[in-house]
């Protein structure tokens, strides 16, 4: 019961959804088609996933809550984390439930626009600095392979920079050849390999050969 039911659920749900890509017929004893059934299950998935967000957040609350209670180092930041989290939750849910309250909506959009999304953009753009340091530190012509990798990178960059084009008009041509010929080739080969590996993993999970993630006990 504790092990077989989960395996059965994986098999039934997985097979049902997979089948809906190949077949479409009215399910016996009902007036819904396989496709409609599959989209219902898909919709359930969205809802169950939404519940999972709360579950994961409890872990966050526990870790940071324990820090605050034991006053371990960094507990003030933990408190701020939880405070920010609840500010978003309270303002967000309040403004959702009271769509006529314009000041709540304004507050929530300010929170989003100034206390959340620019920070995402900041972390995202920080990668540019890391690109610079990785270029300096890690891109070394240690071997033929490494040399090919960094030469391709340099040629593509020069192909993309208008200033390099002023120096030698062939840079964009080379860059484009690397992109459309070699890159397409490599992408394709890896995509095929990854698809085969993914397919095999999926089958193993579907048929219950792989049960590590269900836990080894009962």
């Amino acid at each position, binding site marked *: 019961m504790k092990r077989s039911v989960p395996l059965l659920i994986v098999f039934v749900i997985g097979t049902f959804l997979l089948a809906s890509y*190949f077949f479409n017929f009215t399910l016996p004893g009902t007036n819904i088609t396989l496709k409609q059934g599959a989209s219902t299950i898909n919709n359930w998935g969205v809802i169950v996933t939404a519940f999972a967000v709360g579950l994961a957040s409890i*872990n966050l609350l526990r*870790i940071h809550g324990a820090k605050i209670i034991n006053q371990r180092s960094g507990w003030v930041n933990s408190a701020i984390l939880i405070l920010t989290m609840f500010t978003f939750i309270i303002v967000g849910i309040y403004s959702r439930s009271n769509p006529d309250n314009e000041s709540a909506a304004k507050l929530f959009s300010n929170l989003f626009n100034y206390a959340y999304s620019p920070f995402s953009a900041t972390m*995202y753009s920080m990668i540019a600095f890391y690109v610079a340091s990785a270029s300096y530190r*890690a891109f070394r012509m240690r071997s033929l392979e490494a040399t090919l990798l960094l030469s391709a990178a340099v040629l593509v960059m020069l192909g993309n920079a208008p200033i390099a084009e002023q120096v030698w008009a062939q840079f964009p041509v080379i860059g484009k050849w690397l992109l459309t010929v070699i890159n397409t080739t490599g992408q394709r080969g890896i995509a*095929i390999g990854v698809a085969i590996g993914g397919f095999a993993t999926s*089958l193993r999970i579907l048929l219950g050969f792989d049960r590590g993630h269900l836990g*080894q006990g009962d």
Partner: protein
Amino acid sequence: MIEGTHFVFGAFIILGSIIIGVLLATRNGKLHPKIRRIPALDSIEEAVGRATEMGRPVHYSPGYGDITTSTAPQTFASFDVLNHVVALTARYNTQLIVTCKSPQSFPIIQELVREAYLVAGKPDMFREDTVRFISEAQFAWAAGVLGIFTREQVAANIMLGYFMAESLLFAEGGAQVGAIQVAGTGNLAQTAFFVAACDYTLIGEELYAGGAYLSQDASKVGNLAGQDIVKMITIAFIVLGTLLATAESDWLLELIKK
């Protein structure tokens, strides 16, 4: 049957039967495939060992992927390796930190790590903060992980699974605290960064080989051998198609469309 899916269905049945057939044959001892060396996977033990010598924790990231989208197989492949990493840290008595982005896979990972410590006979090595959910938002998760790198001074950083833009943040962040790094992803655009910035990298499909290679579990090894046969068929198929295309015949291309 839906138009245009006949060929895919045929491929599903044939390739699927081959994979499952080889898997079962290997499990029953009829086939004994050997797996070639994958240096990046061998290096995981070295990484954990280094962390042990330094008395600092090992960080493991299962990546950006979750278990309900097309990234799922890579995440599952990562779980296989994570099992092995837990066993290693249990053997060496080294602290492990697993950081998590996907709320769906978080409970599974927590369960997996707890069980793996139990199996290794060290249930008390599992703590509430061994597996940490950081945030579902990509860069909030990245910011949190970078913070953990420096605050906890991780000595080994293992990143396997599906990764997106955070790959270089993690790889450079890890390099800055001097961690030995092993990484691998099926996402091609990010592999370049791992290759450049990490000590050992698994490329593309090597990620899927991880579980089989590390555990030498017969059904997983068999699964891998089955994939090789599928690859041979694919190669033959491409060669045939190329010859036909050169001869200006398109019956194979038409067949695929069916």
